[in-house]
């Protein structure tokens, strides 16, 4: 799949299939991890490294995959190993060893990393400039989960999906595919700066696609889940009434009701079959957070990654229109005055939340676009000097112990509007518009100017009223034009997270999980196309 995109389910490298019970076994004790890490750090230093970090990682995945009344697949995997990164002779070197459990293994990995660094140093024009970072000593961070999904019997999880599938079929779906993705990253980071960070990260994503078919016309329509992948565990599936946002269809915040959503989805997929095909033209768009997260991801998150701006991703994901001169000018109008984007690796229950990043930097929140003006990028320790900073923003990540860490997107969100505004009040002001819920088709150019997005549900707005369902809708715009057309942003009450569970970048490609929050927002006069064709 193309970079900057959302990957299909992927597993960390060197994953091995295990019994579900193995996912509950404890990993190495933290004292053992420290001893192993020190062995690697000492070996690296003795071989001439001026900096070294070690990541001891245990990555657990459980995927439950069903269709209609069948469990199609149960996947339980574990991947354990060590990655050592060093700077020697001013150049990076990296080596990784699967199942490394001895001090000898650690020293071997460190020595290999140093030798690679020294070999590559001959090709370097300028040495790596690493921003200084204070050591935090022995610290830990744990995702604040209430119910560990790995502890829930697998039968209970499969039964939940099969019950949901049954609800879909009873409510008019012809087919239904549902999946539950669970991830637990047990990461131990140590560096020559003096940080030893033990972290326990959980992610969950329940999702489905229902299909409705009209045998008379031979047409079919689908509706996907309005769930979000979250930095939570099974507690996400235990929704409280306060987690639900009612309206034309129910949407969800920190808890998800799969049975309720799939029931609505089956009815809506059927309704789509006879919905009005949109008339192409200019419309005001009212975008729900379950949709907007993806537009933020593609048109704000990616172009503001400093490695893209500098050209490190030119051969694959591409570069960025948001060049350094635009940032330096201090007056580049990325969006209207209502538009404020912030990056935040501390957002509770988000996919990107963690205590320390993969190079020992404490996570934080920072502004990217303030009152519409571009003010910052996302950068890591060997890049921040380029934007005049002395301290990294803490967004370095590797998807496995076997991958080299590099700059990855933090959670990037559109800040809520400061003036009280509800969705109903926003819609009242729209004369001719489309209300879009859920994410759909997505595509953007390699410098992040021109994009096209679809969705799951489209409702026509006429004179302040929702008058019916539409289909065959996609909108095309240009990043700057689009965010400058933002004329209203709902207040904090409507703030919700969406996100990407498998965001791809790099060669070889690595996956990253990232959330994007927003409230419902309105965009004036956006170009809507009709996507219906005949073959």
């Amino acid at each position, binding site marked *: 799949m*193309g970079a*900057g995109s959302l990957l299909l389910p992927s597993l960390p*490298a060197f994953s*091995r*299939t*295990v*019994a579900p019970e193995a996912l509950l076994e404890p990993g190495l004790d933290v004292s053992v991890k420290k001893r192993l890490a020190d062995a690697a750090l000492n070996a690296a230093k003795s071989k001439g490294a001026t900096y070294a970090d070690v990541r001891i990682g245990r990555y657990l995945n459980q995927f439950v995959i069903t269709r209609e009344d*069948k*469990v*199609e697949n*149960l996947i339980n995997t574990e991947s354990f190993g060590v990655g050592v990164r060093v700077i020697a002779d001013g150049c*990076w070197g*990296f080596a990784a060893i699967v199942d490394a459990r001895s001090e000898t293994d650690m020293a071997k990995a460190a020595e290999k990393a140093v030798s*690679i660094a020294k*070999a590559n140093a001959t*090709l*370097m024009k300028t040495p790596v400039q690493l921003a200084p970072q204070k050591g935090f000593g022995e610290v830990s961070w744990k995702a604040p989960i209430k119910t560990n999904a790995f502890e829930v019997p697998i*039968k209970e999880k*499969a039964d939940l999906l099969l019950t949901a599938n049954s609800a879909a079929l009873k409510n008019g779906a*012809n087919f239904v595919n549902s999946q539950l993705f669970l991830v637990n990253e047990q990461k131990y980071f140590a560096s020559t700066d003096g940080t030893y960070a033990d972290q326990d990260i959980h992610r969950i994503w329940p999702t489905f696609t229902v*299909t409705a*078919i009209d*045998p008379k*016309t*031979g*047409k*079919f329509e*689908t509706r996907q889940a309005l769930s979000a992948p979250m930095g939570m565990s099974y507690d996400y599936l235990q929704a409280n009434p306060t987690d639900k946002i009612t309206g034309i269809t129910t949407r969800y915040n920190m808890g998800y009701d799969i049975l309720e959503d799939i029931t609505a989805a089956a009815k809506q997929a059927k309704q789509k079959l006879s919905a009005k095909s949109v008339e192409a033209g200019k419309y005001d768009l009212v975008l729900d957070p379950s949709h907007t997260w993806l537009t933020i991801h593609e048109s704000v998150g990616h172009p503001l990654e400093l490695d893209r701006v*500098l*050209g*490190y*991703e*030119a*051969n*694959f994901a*591409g*570069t960025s*229109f948001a060049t350094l001169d635009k940032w330096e000018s201090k007056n580049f109008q990325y969006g209207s005055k209502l538009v404020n984007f912030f990056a935040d690796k501390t957002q509770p229950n988000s996919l990107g939340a963690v205590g320390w990043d993969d190079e020992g930097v404490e996570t934080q929140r920072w502004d990217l676009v303030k009152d519409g003006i571009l003010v910052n990028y996302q950068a890591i320790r060997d890049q921040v000097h380029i934007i005049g900073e002395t301290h990294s923003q803490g967004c370095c990540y590797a998807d496995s112990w*076997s991958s*080299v860490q590099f700059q990855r997107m933090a959670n990037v969100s559109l800040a809520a509007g400061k003036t009280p505004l509800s969705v109903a009040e926003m819609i009242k002001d729209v004369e001719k518009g489309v209300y879009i819920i859920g994410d759909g*088709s*997505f*595509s953007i*150019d*390699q*410098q*992040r*100017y*021109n994009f*096209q997005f679809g969705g799951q549900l489209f409702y026509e707005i006429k004179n302040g009223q929702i008058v019916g369902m539409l289909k*065959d809708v*996609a909108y*095309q715009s240009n990043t700057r034009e689009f965010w400058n057309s933002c004329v209203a942003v709902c207040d904090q009450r409507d703030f919700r997270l969406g996100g990407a569970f498998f965001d791809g970048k790099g*060669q*070889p490609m690595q996956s990253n999980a990232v959330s994007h929050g927003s409230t419902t927002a309105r965009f004036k006069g956006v170009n809507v*196309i009709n*996507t*219906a*064709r005949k*073959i």
Partner: protein
Amino acid sequence: MPILSKEEARQIIDKVLSFSKADELSANLSGSRRGNIRYARNAVSTSGESDNLSLAITAVFGKKAGTATINEFDNASLEKTVRRAEEIARLAPENPEYMPMLGPQQYLDPQTFADSTAKIDPDFRAQATFDSIDPCRKKNLTAAGYMEDTTGFSAIGNSKGLFGYNKATNVDFSVTVRTADGTGSGYARPDFTDVGKLNTRSTTEVAMQKALASVNARALEPGKYTVILEPTASVELLQNMMRSMDARSADEGRSFLSKKGGGTRQGERLFDERVTIYTDPMNSELPLSPFGGGGGGGGGRFGGGGGNDGLPQEKTTWIENGVVKNIPHSRYWADKKGVKPIPGPAGFIVQGGNQSLLDMIKGTEKGILVTRLWYIRAVDPQTLLYTGLTRDGTFYIENGQIKFPVKNFRFNESPVIMLNNLEALGKPVRSGGNLIPPMKIRDFTFTSLSDAV
């Protein structure tokens, strides 16, 4: 070295099978060595090499299957893993669609392995990278590229007597060259079984030429244009179409191959009559694994397309003279429909003509040369409508000549419609693990302009 010989692989698999207490047992043993080097801004950014050797054992009781994997091969570890797979199988839910394992099969013997590729080492990668960066530095151009080489084997055996072994190599190289001011960009991406055919300098020179020629692009109005798609441009659209060919989803009524009122469109003429697409594992330019599954990575050369049950890959015609001839059928669906199972295409060949790209340009009165398409995503699965953008060199053709570079476009087009609007086919070349000719297409739909370079 993770590359086992056929006999070494057979010994391990036989040992595994001897420990079985299950109704059925299969073993997939695969190993690979992958090396890569990445560069950007005319300097190496990362490089690495990794070995992997692993064995997946699947035990079956009735219709309950369990899989366990291991990367240690002593008798005790093998036996322990067989027991673990059996334990997982006993606890697994019954799979009503489970198909009994296959008995012994006859496999083709394609030449998927090249010694030269298997011998690639870090010095070779560094030299290949230097050969790409060096001409760019000299012309004040900036190169970013990536080379990945894979050597692997895959062996499969089961308690019904099936055994298969294949060894394969692949090298994939891509390079993007940009002008110093960022106003021009070019790209090239060849892939080979035999690295002896790869020349990173001459490949980079193609990208350099496109980068220089694409400077000062002019804006044309979006609309319907005659286009010439280079294979690097059309490959992903065609791959998406081929992957969407599946008998079950067609029968279920949720595919572009579903027939109104039920059934599939097999036998119908859906494309221009010059369109013929087939798979041939024995093709010397595009040798493919003789069976599906087994891992090893690297797409069709290592055993992609069609599950991991050892179903043979044979020469198969998917589309013949515009008519849908065969649609992949999983073993379960084939059994249900009473037909022969056909594994999905691991790589395909679009039959072409003898015209070169230059000949096609010469024969074009007005049109647009598209060298690459990017960020292609499905818009409507019913019609296979896709959207995406041109990238890294798009040019206006008039009276048989390239006149000037044009700004990039977004397209919304279906490969089904595209292959009906066919004007001409050129000589096929290997692209992304397929053989694809340059294609001249009329009425290709561009819906908006992009400022991206």
